[in-house]
């Protein structure tokens, strides 16, 4: 096998085949299918041809609905066309799927199957999306492994062409799409051997063409529609046989034989499990293990789910089977059973076979499905009265559907190396492990498997790599629970989680620690010491960071730890491993230049001398232990539920612990102390001018300002700092405080970068300076706690029109998991400071919904009165409509409340109805009136009083904001956004414009600027960024602002306040620097400033109210360009990558981009200079 294998993941395996078998590929990013589109775009940019020698056309669309439409059109016009998608994306395609199938159009859609959002979004894998398409007429073909993802991509395409039935080829999201495995790749000749060009010709022959005109897409009446719908039946009847024929042809070519239903197990099995997808791997492994114990069992793997070939199913199921369990990786609430179960029951009934059949659910949202769970199902089948409609893998202590299983049951082959690596996202552990898999896969004939688990944070995130290497094919489609090698690449993890939980007795433990072999033992938490002793682990230590720093690698310890793994594990001879690692480095980094290669080489060469085996202590004698996940003072739900998830033990939570409807408390991120920075800002209170810029820009709300009377500081900790307040509104006794939360800071340094004050004696010393966190942590934690205990400064004590004043407003968005230095979160935080206590947020799916709402905790929080942002995420595509719905509800209920209040007819009612809520004081006064109203209503039980009580809170002004990124606003949600802006209703839109789909890894949107490289724009974007502001301005009735906090912070503040105060639709487009722009984000604000200075991002406001005063509503708020576009753009890798890779194209695009800037400036400045001829309403007849 060696030499011809490829080490790839499922997405690459499928995309490689799909790309070579198509002419038109419509793409759109959605996890976990995005990389299929990315591969297609990249191959297209590289000029790779399909098997007919032509480079496919690859087109990114604005949504999956758009991709499906383009697919449909391309197919109708005779092209071989495909697309890739998952989850909500697939749901958006459904209308076209009906059309494509109804027209018997040969095509394949490749799906990385993913959970459909219900009570919550999940990016992980199950079959709820695929099952939602089973009525469309598409054939559904399930691949169980990385190998099959490639193989079935071909089989599906050939079968579709021959049968005319379109295929949905799917494999499990993440488990297969992202699992790295060694496969036998399909060559172009393999593809040509299986694809019969006669059918390609027939497909083209059915194309719409004026040369042979036909009409398709008719509207039909009751007289004929039904008959026409039945007219294609024969194609579905023929389809399964065609699929099997293609599978046989494929087997003849490759030796890999598949059937519509593949049975594995005892020929005389009594108990059989039926399932499809990656779970088949675990099931097969379990069946083999249990058969060795003499059990008569088997597993029937469903390949072709639609059309469901009942005869072939019955033929595949052993006649001896008396008890059958059908497992579905989806849930249909209210059904008699999940889809596969129902199909199997029907097939058996119609086939007059009557074994006992039970159905169960497993593996929703990539929930682990292990041999222990498979065994539990077989055990259940052996019972006299097995549970039907069961669940497995969870503890359902509410409706008691779940099967018990023994977590200790394992079928892991002893000869397989099972290695676990705990790393930080930023330390390169995953990348190194992917390299290790490739090295072993290429250097040996061993089977390899890699699967990678990430947490929900974008900063300081932990990664866990699960690597298996062995002599036999690896079908273990589950995480490693019994490892014989565990590496912890970050010492601090030892005090947060039990990294040795999965280590088996006698395993090897490799630790990266800042301690030598003689001292490391005493720095281990007690329970870690106990585990090492109890499990008799071999223990190795290396100071990887020291080696990395010496080699010029910064904090990247990946290569160093990789060398350690090979040196200790013995997977390869040491010298051979080092040679292979260096070759791999040269392959990986070579095109990044010699310096990158040489530094990695230096790291390799320095490693082994610093790797030590530790002589473990004789007893666990540490005086400290693993820290609790959350403080004991946290609320019970946080402690018991969220805390369990934070500790990485969420799988243990029973059903009863979960909210029934996806509703969670806010204010929980403050309990998730992550302690991820090595440096924090330190305040020089003598130098500080109290401008508030640091507080404004802090992405994680970890630096807070406050004003307090001196008397309140009597009990302050000794190191707590304050300064005489320099505010006009405060008296002489007021003190200004600036405090950092050391456990929540991410060390991004934006606060230090923005600090405008420099020491007159030493220019590098500012009012904020970064310093090592560890020595300060205890004292600053105490100071933070004290600061938090102080009362917030009254919201009506200062006018909220300056950055200086706004800094003392309490942020109700804090400690998110966003990237360190995030350019989006400062805007959201500011929004919550200004309006948080009366804010409703409709959040489009994307970065802001992930750091805003991904469990275990949320950054949205409440003030001392318990008020705070109410937040929800509906979908990606519908956010504008979703937010408008909120506004309509609030308005309607407000109107109803006012109608009811009006009937009261007293002074309170008059106050409530005539309240001026344009100021903080006015809003507070209204709140008091509402409170009085509730008191008044308390004793009344009339229907009207009850009704008024339920809607009384809507009498206080609410601020409805629609938040989302440019992927939403410019692309998938553009239609809805346009409609909502045109509605005239009082909604506010905040577009966090990063100019790419940041959350899914930086794909091009219509906001992406000309000349920038992005995924799906590998060759650089050739068209200009859409001017969303001018689109909205064209209505004349929409408040529009384009802001950049780093360009002009007071302008940003003014725009948000004006937008909120405007009683119609408002749109604020906020420049958000982003990790996807490719530079150190500590310079994010400087880049924002440069964007404004270059004229690329002119600051503007369009306020329709100004027209009433005879003023031009259009205000251009930034100065004419003072630097060239190039001087701004070429600070960012998204532009310089193109300049490096294709300088001629980059230069041409740069010239055009500068012309864009110049032209826009001319248009804007002309518009701003226009006089408003007459006041509105003075129209003459």
């Amino acid at each position, binding site marked *: 096998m060696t030499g011809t294998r490829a080490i790839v993941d499922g997405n690459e395996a499928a995309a490689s085949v799909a790309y070579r078998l198509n002419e038109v590929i419509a793409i759109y990013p959605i996890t976990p299918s995005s990389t299929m589109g990315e591969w297609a775009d990249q191959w297209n940019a590289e000029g790779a041809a399909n098997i007919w020698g032509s480079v496919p056309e690859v087109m990114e669309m604005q949504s999956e609905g758009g991709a499906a439409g383009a697919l449909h059109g391309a197919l109708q016009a005779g092209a071989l066309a495909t697309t890739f998608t998952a989850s909500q994306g697939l749901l958006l395609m459904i209308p076209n799927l009906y059309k494509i199938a109804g027209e018997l159009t040969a095509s394949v859609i490749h799906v990385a199957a993913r959970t459909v959002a219900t009570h919550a979004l999940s990016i992980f894998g199950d079959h709820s999306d695929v099952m939602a398409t089973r009525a469309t007429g598409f054939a559904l073909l399930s691949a169980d492994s990385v190998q099959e993802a490639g193989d079935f991509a071909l089989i599906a395409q050939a079968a579709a062409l021959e049968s005319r039935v379109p295929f949905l080829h799917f494999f499990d999201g993440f488990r297969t799409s992202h699992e790295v495995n060694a496969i036998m790749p399909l060559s172009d000749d393999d593809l040509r051997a299986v694809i019969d060009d006669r059918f390609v010709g027939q497909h083209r022959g059915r194309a719409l063409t004026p040369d042979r005109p036909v009409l398709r897409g008719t509207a039909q009446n009751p007289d004929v529609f039904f008959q026409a719908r039945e007219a294609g039946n024969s194609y579905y009847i023929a389809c399964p046989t065609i699929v099997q024929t293609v599978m046989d042809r494929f087997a003849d070519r490759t030796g890999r034989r598949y059937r519509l239903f593949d049975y594995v197990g005892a020929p005389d099995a009594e108990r059989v499990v039926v399932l499809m997808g990656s779970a088949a791997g675990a099931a097969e492994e379990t069946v083999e293990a249990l058969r060795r114990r003499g059990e008569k069992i088997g597993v029937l793997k469903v390949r072709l789910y639609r059309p469901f070939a009942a005869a072939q199913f019955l033929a595949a199921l052993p006649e001896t089977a008396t008890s059958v369990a059908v497992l579905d990786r989806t849930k249909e609430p209210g059904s008699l059973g999940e889809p596969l179960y129902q199909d199997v029951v029907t097939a058996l009934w119609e086939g007059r076979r009557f074994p006992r059949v039970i159905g169960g659910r497993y593996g929703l949202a990539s929930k682990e499905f292990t041999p222990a769970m498979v065994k539990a199902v077989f055990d259940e089948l052996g019972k006299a009265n097995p549970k039907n409609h069961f669940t497995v893998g969870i503890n359902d202590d509410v409706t008691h559907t779940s099967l018990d299983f023994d977590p200790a049951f394992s079928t892991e082959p002893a000869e397989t190396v099972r290695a676990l690596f705990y790393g930080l996202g930023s330390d390169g552990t995953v990348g190194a492990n992917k390299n290790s898999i490739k090295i072993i896969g290429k250097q040996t004939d061993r089977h390899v498997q890699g699967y990678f688990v990430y947490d929900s944070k974008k900063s300081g995130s932990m990664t866990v790599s699960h690597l298996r290497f062995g002599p036999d094919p690896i079908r273990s489609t589950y995480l490693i629970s019994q490892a014989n090698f565990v590496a912890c690449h970050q010492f601090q993890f030892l005090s947060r989680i039990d990294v040795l939980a999965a280590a088996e007795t006698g395993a090897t433990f490799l630790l990266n620690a800042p301690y030598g072999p003689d001292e490391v033992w005493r720095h281990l938490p007690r329970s870690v010491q106990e585990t090492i002793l109890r499990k008799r682990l071999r223990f190795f230590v290396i100071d990887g960071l020291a080696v990395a720093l010496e080699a010029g690698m910064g904090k990247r310890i990946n290569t160093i730890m990789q060398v350690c793994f090979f040196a200790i594990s013995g997977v390869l001879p040491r010298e051979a491993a080092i040679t292979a690692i260096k070759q791999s480095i040269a392959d990986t980094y070579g095109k990044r230049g010699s310096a990158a290669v040489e530094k990695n080489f230096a790291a390799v060469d320095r490693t082994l001398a610093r790797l030590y085996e530790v002589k473990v202590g004789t007893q666990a004698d540490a005086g400290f232990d693993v820290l609790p996940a959350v403080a004991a003072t946290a609320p019970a739900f946080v402690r018991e539920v969220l805390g369990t998830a934070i500790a990485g033990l969420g799988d243990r939570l029973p059903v009863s612990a979960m909210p029934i409807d996806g509703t969670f408390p806010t204010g929980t991120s403050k309990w998730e102390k992550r302690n991820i920075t090595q440096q924090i800002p330190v305040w020089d209170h003598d130098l500080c001018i109290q401008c508030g810029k640091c507080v404004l820009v802090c992405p994680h709300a970890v630096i807070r300002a406050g004003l307090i009377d001196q008397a309140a500081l009597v009990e302050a900790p000794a190191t707590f700092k304050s300064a005489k307040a320099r505010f006009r509104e405060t008296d002489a006794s007021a003190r200004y405080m600036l405090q950092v939360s050391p456990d929540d800071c991410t060390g991004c340094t934006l606060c230090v970068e923005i600090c405008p004050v420099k020491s007159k004696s030493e220019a590098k010393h500012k009012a904020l300076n970064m310093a090592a966190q560890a020595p300060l942590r205890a004292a600053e934690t105490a100071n933070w706690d004290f600061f938090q205990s102080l009362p917030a400064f009254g919201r009506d004590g200062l006018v909220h029109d300056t950055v200086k004043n706004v800094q003392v407003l309490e942020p109700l968005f804090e400690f998110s998991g966003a990237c360190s230095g995030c350019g989006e979160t400062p805007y959201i935080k500011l929004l919550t400071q200004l309006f948080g206590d009366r804010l409703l947020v409709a959040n489009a799916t994307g970065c802001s919904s992930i750091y805003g709402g991904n469990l275990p905790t949320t950054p949205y929080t409440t003030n001392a009165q318990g008020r705070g942002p109410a937040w929800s995420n509906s979908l990606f595509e519908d956010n504008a409509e979703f937010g408008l719905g909120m506004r309509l509800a609030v308005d309607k209920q407000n109107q109803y409340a006012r109608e009811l209040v009006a009937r009261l007819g007293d002074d309170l009612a008059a106050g409530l109805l005539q309240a001026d809520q344009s100021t903080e004081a006015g809003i507070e006064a209204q709140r008091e009136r509402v409170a009085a109203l509730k008191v008044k209503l308390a004793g009344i039980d009339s229907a009207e009083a009850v009704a008024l009580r339920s809607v009384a809170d809507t009498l206080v002004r609410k601020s409805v904001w629609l938040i989302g990124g440019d992927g939403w606003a410019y692309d998938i949600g553009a239609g809805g956004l346009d409609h909502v802006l045109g509605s005239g209703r009082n909604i506010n839109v905040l577009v966090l414009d990063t100019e790419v789909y940041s959350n899914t890894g930086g794909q091009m949107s219509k906001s992406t600027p000309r000349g920038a*490289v992005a995924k799906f724009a590998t060759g650089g974007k050739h068209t200009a960024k859409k001017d969303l502001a001018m689109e909205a301005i064209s209505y004349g009735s929409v408040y529009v602002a384009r802001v950049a906090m780093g360009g002009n912070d007071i302008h940003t503040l003014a725009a948000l306040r004006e937008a909120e105060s405007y009683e119609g639709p408002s749109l604020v487009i906020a420049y958000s620097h982003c990790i*996807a722009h490719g530079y150190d984000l500590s310079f994010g604000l400087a880049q924002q400033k440069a964007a404004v200075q270059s004229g690329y991002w002119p600051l503007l406001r369009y306020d329709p109210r100004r027209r009433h005063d005879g003023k031009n509503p259009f205000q251009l708020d930034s100065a004419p360009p003072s630097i060239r576009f190039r001087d701004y753009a070429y600070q960012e890798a998204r532009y310089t990558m193109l300049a*490096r890779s294709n300088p001629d194209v980059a230069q041409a695009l740069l010239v055009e981009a500068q012309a864009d800037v110049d032209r826009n400036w001319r248009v804007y400045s002309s518009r701003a200079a226009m006089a408003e001829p007459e006041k509105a309403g003075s129209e003459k007849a």
Partner: protein
Amino acid sequence: MSDLTTRYLGLTLTSPLVASSSPLGDSVESIVRLEDHGIAAVVLPSLFEEQIELESMSVDDDLARGADSFAESLSFFPDLKDYNIGPDRYLELIRGAKARVEIPVIASLNGVSGGGWIRYARLMEEAGADAIELNLYEIATDPAISGAAVEQGLLDLVASVRQSVRIPLAVKLSPFFSAPANMGRRLDHAGADALVLFNRFYQPDLAIEDQDVVSTLVLSRPEELLLRLHWTAILFGHVGADLAITGGVHSARDVVKCVMAGARVAFMASALLQNGVEHAGVVLADLRRWLDAHEYASIGQMCGSMSYRSVPDTSAYERGNYMKVLSSYVLKGGPVAGPPGMGHRRI
């Protein structure tokens, strides 16, 4: 008509007017334009080894930043086939220029490591450069390192590159040596075929409002020529290496001065950037007119005619020059008018 032909680095040039290392040499098209307007040779912009290293690490950092950290975004950029990190583009420029122009193309190199200097010099030679100019740009910020050590380092470097390539080697010097004449001679002995006087540096300026240090590189001014004339005149005849002047050459008269001081060639960049490449033609026409008017048969005739060794009174090139300037200034200006409130003082 006077003969403008000169020899530099063993190459025959049609005139002493050479385009100095500047953005004017960063594309083949631009180099063709320089030739079209009479420039006799072009020195390409410097290839900075440090920059290549920096770019390599920067691309690596940019691609690694945020990668493999979050399940939905395992990377943020497509991994392109080639980032053109390294000298390839530069070498392509040499090859491209050599294919299009007749004039000599002189590559320029600034290294940081011994290995880097030699590796890149060889690559430049292989790419077809007619000569290499070593741009000895170094700021000796470490007080622990002596001038002697710095000088020895440079000499070793020149010697090692000299041994590694066969094409002519020019060395572009800084004026900041305790004994420039001695340094010039030692470089000559180390293998330099030409000495180019002098490098111009990015000079940090202080933005006093922002308390920032700002890097600047302003275009040269004609008065900068004087320092170069001075040391060219002193070195002429004391070194076997050809002499070249760069910095402050703006007109035909400046070219005449350079040659009279002892330079074989005069490098021009700022004047071309300011006035356009067409300015070269103007300078050459002026130069011809001047030579004709003053009845010089050739430019070579005047080379070194006003060098230290050729003038009757050398005191002007020695300390006497300083004394003379000071005294003449006093005689001319009388009492010096200082700022208000400073009173009057005499120098």
